[in-house]
């Protein structure tokens, strides 16, 4: 007799935001796989549609719904799971689990909380509880106090000493934290922290300037068996958020005695907290290493556990899931080698460096300071034989325009450079290298920066190598040495003012090539066959067993950054799965430790390497790859594909002919013209004066954008010639020698399609309709799928245009096309011959395996052979509404006004049988808390005042109280809608900050002064977490959604 498998609910982590990137897609996916392996039925809840875990290939039942108590209750009532796993979905899942524990939901439905208990979670996460627990077991903590008001913070300060650090309770990535150096900054920081903490509580503690920060990833089971999977050392000292620190593994500067002391302490802590699963313990250690203190404990899988997993090959989340289900570490085989024990601590014979990726290029207005608030959106990891090699590889992986030799620091004064030591920004490493180059003593740099002298000496090794190189040129012995250090051909070339190809030639002629080594978790002691490799120049290759299958490589998307989120990792993983299912050997190349694609058992072989031509080519040779997929990893990968093709590599689906024809806007323009399709009038220019001339001919407003963009970097709508000059100069610089396009800016509604083409026929799963007006980057726009407002003939028009473009380009695979419907005509804005941000959404809503089909078309199958009916698919699934999520609360100084430059870090998807339902779900999924009835503030620019009356009327009818700024209020009064007028200025800002309104509708005018005024409002709204809408169509849609929900509730 067959029994129904027991089901387990897994809580995901929601949209990607700063402090919570793809690492929880990785951990949740591992949980689902572990459940499946153990014969359980997994039910996954996550509002983030771009993830692998929300694919039915991972979980048995997937709910793309908001992570909210009522949603969990519905699911629990329907499925009656026997347990819930909440420790693999980050802080969001953990908080939700604790909340539901308190409300008694788990008990009511008899759901067991698996893994670390909610009681233990509260003890580790509630600052005061934790402090008490540590004092009880004699573990030193940092002198601190927990306050719920500013006054108490001040009295603590009176008996302690500045500087003090402020950490709000229960917030992501340390949001709202900061260092106070005096009474005024303390007042301010505490007030902000209290507001951002969901429990209105902050910890004020002594700030240990210059102490080192060490993290341990510990795994413990219910019987108390435990191991430390990995120790990690922050190169940056205390005071810099670990998410924003350069991190090295294993710990390099501690003696065995010092290290064991921390390790034993971590074990006492996890024993006391009764951790059952993964746990991250952070220590501060004094400069002389004589004293240490526990900073915090994360009783769950975290960003660091993802890093530790990738650094050692030990799959922490999977083992944690097994432990949650009751397995013991002493019973499980070693997950890396397959033999031996899961309790064996990983040993490594390499060094791993993690480097943060900051989004500052997207936010010219942001404060670039790096400190207690995490600001990076993602990170890269690199593996090398030495710290220097790993650091150089990490910097290469960041995909920055100039890499380690970025000349900007050379132009800075010594004072400016020294400023980076005490008030660091994302450029600190470069400043240190420059100071060393100028002969500033390492000891002084170390003392000022708080970075351990060991690391400064290591950095000095880098500058010395370049110095020697400059003096001696390409001597064979020296070349061998600098290559073994990890310096790239490109960097050698640029320091010698040579062509990198000549350096490569010379190197190859000397036989200096990369060897690949397996990450085996045991430092070579036992065979592992993990298929997980890293390359190093000048050392032997581990060798590889030949495999009869034809091999294909997939280029990943690198660090999570704005414009290149987890959706591309989804596409890469699906491509790898498709290749494997077709009997091919799938080779994955990527450098992001947070992702599923860098799980070594997803692909046949994984190369954790920078995504540069020099790093990729030898992999392709070693694996005897027949072709490379560069169209699934987003723009970076596409660009890399072009460069690889120039080296004779076969690029599948999107060869350079296709990429250039669509991405080089001049070429693309010509093609569109030839096809007789409309496009915004535009020109490619290479000089500012040329641009001004062309713009005058097109007429303002114009849209300015460079070729080869990620997330619309440097795209701008410009209204006047005086504005155009500087914008154009910036865009030309960002385009790096490419031309910049100036288009007539067309107001209207935007649409977007993902087209699957076999070169002769196309299939379109549906059309995305954007709610935000044209000019807002598609990634930042609320979008409905499938569209709601197009007539059948208009849909056919889109399908027809799409087909013609796809066929003319010769795409074999996926093509994303964006349209604007302006007046009565569709204009094509752009076409990208690659998997787009929306592919996972279209795929999940329609159930069509778009990526798999794209892989198969690229390998030669036709739509007909795959039984895919051509044309635009009729509506087959529910409605979906994609809602972008911004992390602007983490980035002081940044305006939240959407525009052509993408700013969102992630997205949520709402799914429903009606658009109203889907929108409401989407907004909730994105973290919006809009009540059915409440109080709103309207502040609308003149051009939109008339339309705003509709919105006001709709909310008014729903019983909302309305306030409006003077002009708007006057207009509403004329219509007969009563609204309390409010004065602009400081009072308004403080009223926003005190969360007087539940919703703000702010339609900005283009005038700089008004923009500044609106900026303060928007910023206040962000800081106070008040939903702020910047366009009327979304406001109207929200009104509809609320009215339907109210009706549903009343009936």
């Amino acid at each position, binding site marked *: 007799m067959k029994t129904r498998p027991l089901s387990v609910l897994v809580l995901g982590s929601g949209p990607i935001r700063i402090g919570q990137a793809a690492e929880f897609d990785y951990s949740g996916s591992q949980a689902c796989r572990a459940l499946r392996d153990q014969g359980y039925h997994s039910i996954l809840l996550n509002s983030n549609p771009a993830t692998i875990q929300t694919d039915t290939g991972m979980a048995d039942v997937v709910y793309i719904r908001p992570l909210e108590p009522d949603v969990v209750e519905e699911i629990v009532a329907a499925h009656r799971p026997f347990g819930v796993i909440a420790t693999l979905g980050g802080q969001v899942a953990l908080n939700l689990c604790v909340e539901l524990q308190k409300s008694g939901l788990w008990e009511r439905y008899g759901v067991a909380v698996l893994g670390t208990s909610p009681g233990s979670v509260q003890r580790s996460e509630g600052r005061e509880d934790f402090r008490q627990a540590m004092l009880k077991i004699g573990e030193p903590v940092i002198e601190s106090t927990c306050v719920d008001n500013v006054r108490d913070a001040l009295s603590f300060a009176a008996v302690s000493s500045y500087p003090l650090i402020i950490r709000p309770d229960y917030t992501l990535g340390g949001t709202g934290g900061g260092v106070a150096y005096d009474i005024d900054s303390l007042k301010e920081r505490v007030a902000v922290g209290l507001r951002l903490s969901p429990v209105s509580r902050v910890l004020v503690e002594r700030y240990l300037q210059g102490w080192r920060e060490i993290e341990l990833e510990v795994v413990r089971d219910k*019987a*108390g*068996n435990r*191991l*430390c999977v990995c120790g990690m050392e922050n190169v940056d000292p205390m005071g810099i958020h670990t998410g924003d620190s350069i991190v090295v593994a*294993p*710990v*390099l*500067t*501690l*003696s*065995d*005695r010092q*290290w*064991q002391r921390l*390790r*034993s302490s971590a*074990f006492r802590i996890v024993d006391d907290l009764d951790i059952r699963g993964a746990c991250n313990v952070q220590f501060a250690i004094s400069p002389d290493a004589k004293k240490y203190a526990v900073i915090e404990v994360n009783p769950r899988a975290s960003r660091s556990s993802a890093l530790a997993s990738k650094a050692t090959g030990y799959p922490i989340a999977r083992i944690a899931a097994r432990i949650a289900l009751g397995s*013991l*570490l*002493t019973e499980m085989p*070693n997950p890396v080698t397959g*033999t*031996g*024990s899961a*309790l*064996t*601590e*990983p*040993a*490594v*014979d*390499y*060094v791993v460096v993690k480097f943060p990726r900051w989004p500052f290029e997207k936010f010219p207005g942001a404060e670039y300071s790096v400190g207690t608030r995490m600001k990076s959106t993602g990170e890269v990891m690199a593996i090398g*034989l*030495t*710290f220097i090699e790993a650091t150089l590889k990490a910097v290469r992986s960041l995909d920055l325009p100039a890499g380690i030799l970025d000349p900007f620091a050379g132009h800075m004064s010594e004072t400016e450079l020294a400023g980076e030591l005490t008030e660091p920004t994302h450029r600190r490493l470069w400043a240190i290298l420059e100071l060393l180059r100028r002969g500033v003593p390492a000891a002084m740099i170390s003392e000022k920066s708080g970075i*351990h*002298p*060991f690391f400064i*000496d290591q950095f000095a090794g880098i500058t010395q190598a370049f110095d020697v190189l400059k003096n001696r040129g390409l001597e064979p012995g020296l070349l061998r040495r600098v290559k073994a250090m990890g310096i790239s051909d490109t960097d050698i070339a640029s320091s010698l003012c040579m062509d990198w190809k000549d350096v490569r030639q010379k190197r190859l002629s000397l036989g200096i090539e990369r060897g690949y*080594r397996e990450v085996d978790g*045991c*430092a*070579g*002691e*036992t*065979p592992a066959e993990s298929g997980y490799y890293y390359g190093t120049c000048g*050392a*032997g290759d*581990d060798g590889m067993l030949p495999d009869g299958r034809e091999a294909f490589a997939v280029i990943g998307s690198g660090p999570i950054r704005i414009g290149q989120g987890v959706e591309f990792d989804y596409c890469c993983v699906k491509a790898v799965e498709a290749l494997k299912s077709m009997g091919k050997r799938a080779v994955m190349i990527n450098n992001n430790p947070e992702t599923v694609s860098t799980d070594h058992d997803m692909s046949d072989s994984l190369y954790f390497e920078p995504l540069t031509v020099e790093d990729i080519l030898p992999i392709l040779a070693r694996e005897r790859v027949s072709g490379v997929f560069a169209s699934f990893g987003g723009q970076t990968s596409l660009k890399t594909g072009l460069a690889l093709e120039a080296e004779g590599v076969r690029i599948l689906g999107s060869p350079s002919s296709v990429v250039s024809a669509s991405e080089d806007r001049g070429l693309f323009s010509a093609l569109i013209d030839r096809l007789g399709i409309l496009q915004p009038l535009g020109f490619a220019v290479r000089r500012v004066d040329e641009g001004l001339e062309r713009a005058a001919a097109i007429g303002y407003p114009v849209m300015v954008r460079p070729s080869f963009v990620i997330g619309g970097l440097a795209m701008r709508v410009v209204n006047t010639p005086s504005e155009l000059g500087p914008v154009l100069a910036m865009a030309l610089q960002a385009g790096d020698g490419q031309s910049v396009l100036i288009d007539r800016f067309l107001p209207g509604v935007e649409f977007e399609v993902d087209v699957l083409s076999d070169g002769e026929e196309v299939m379109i799963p549906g059309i995305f309709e954007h709610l935000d007006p044209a000019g807002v980057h598609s990634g930042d726009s609320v979008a409905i799928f499938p569209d709601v407002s197009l007539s059948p003939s208009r849909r056919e028009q889109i399908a027809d245009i799409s087909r013609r473009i796809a066929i003319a380009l010769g795409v074999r695979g996926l093509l994303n096309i964006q349209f604007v419907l302006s007046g009565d005509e569709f204009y094509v804005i752009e076409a990208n011959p690659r998997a787009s941000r929306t592919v996972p959404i279209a795929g999940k809503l329609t159930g069509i395996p778009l990526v798999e089909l794209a892989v198969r078309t690229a390998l030669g199958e036709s739509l007909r052979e795959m039984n895919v009916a051509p044309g635009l698919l009729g509506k087959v699934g529910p409605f979906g509404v994609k809602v972008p999520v911004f992390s602007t609360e983490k980035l002081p100084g940044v305006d939240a006004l959407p525009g052509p430059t993408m700013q969102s870090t992630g997205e949520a998807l709402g799914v429903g049988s009606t658009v109203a339902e889907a929108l409401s779900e989407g907004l909730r999924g994105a973290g919006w808390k809009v009540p059915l009835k409440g109080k709103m503030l309207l502040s609308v620019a003149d051009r939109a005042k008339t339309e705003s009356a509709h919105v006001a009327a709709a909310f008014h009818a729903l019983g909302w109280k309305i306030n409006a700024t003077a002009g708007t209020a006057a207009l509403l009064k004329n219509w007969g809608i009563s609204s309390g007028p409010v004065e602009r200025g400081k009072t308004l800002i403080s009223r926003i900050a005190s969360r007087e309104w539940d919703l703000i509708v702010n339609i900005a005018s283009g005038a700089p002064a008004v923009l500044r005024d609106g900026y303060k409002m928007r910023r206040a709204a962000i800081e106070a977490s008040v939903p702020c809408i910047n366009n009327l169509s979304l406001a109207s849609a929200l009104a509809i959604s609320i009215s339907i929900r109210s009706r549903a509730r009343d009936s």
Partner: protein
Amino acid sequence: MTEMEIVLEDGTTWSGLGEGGSARGEVVFSTASTGYPQAVSDPSFAGQILVFAFPMIGNYGVDEDLLESPRPWARAVVLGSLEKGTSLGPSFEEWLSRFSVPLVSGVDTRSLVRHIRTAGALQGTVSPVGEAASVPGNSGHPVAEVSAKSPEVFDGPGATIAVIDYGLKQGILRELLRRGCRVIKLPHNSTREEILSWDPDGVLLGNGPGDPALLETEIEVAASLLGAIPIGGICLGLQIMALASGASTFKLTFGHRGANHAVVDLRTGRGFVTSQNHGYAVLETSLAGTGMEVTHRNLGDGSIEGVRNPEQSVVAVQYHPEGSPGPRDGEEFFEEFLSLCERGLTR
């Protein structure tokens, strides 16, 4: 810098750089990433050429106050990247040269480790290129070389423990003293009478280098103590104890050397991570009839990690409960041994 080479007895070679000097010995590797000064100063490495699998060695210098013995015992050290850190003491390089221990850096240690893991620990030499053949061999058992020559007393308020120094790690001494013991450290060739003349509450057979089966006198003395006094054993001490009880030992292919070995206490089911350094192990089938039972097992290869004989008040572990380098997760062995000493003989 001189071009150096490592030549194994099977004819394979590895190259690196050094300051000259040569040595011959068994080539073994350790996978621990911390504690290079403690490893090299562990007398159990006497007669061996130690290869570090972790590439960056020397990061913080040598913490001289926490060594396992006053000097390096490995005959030579082979590593990947030599770091010149001095934050905790003299640089590793300088310290080794003080004792004329050859150091070879820049070696592709991973391929060497991978070779040893299949070929087994082999004899080999370290020398300037071309001079391998002329490196003289070693003679005699290394225990004689590393053991204390005369008794030494360390006072403490607690139980008196006679520790036999076959190449004793300072860490074991430290753990006993930390627990208040009065420790009498005795040379490896001490007789039964000499040992018992200190009127100890227990005898601890310590760690040490080399093939235990060759230590005939030591085994005989241990056998004569069986049943006369509570006895503990650590590493080589366990092996001597097993041999004294009539069991036998065998050579592992390449040994256990590192700080990450998972061990389970079969009596409680509790698992923990241990520090290990041994090339030989007790043959399980040979325990039959000795009165010894297995208490601990290696979760990796299943080899014996702990034995006891309740009849004769004997407890011994193969791993290093004192860590150093490595974890002390299994340090409860000391409690077990000391409580045995406190209780005295069960009969």
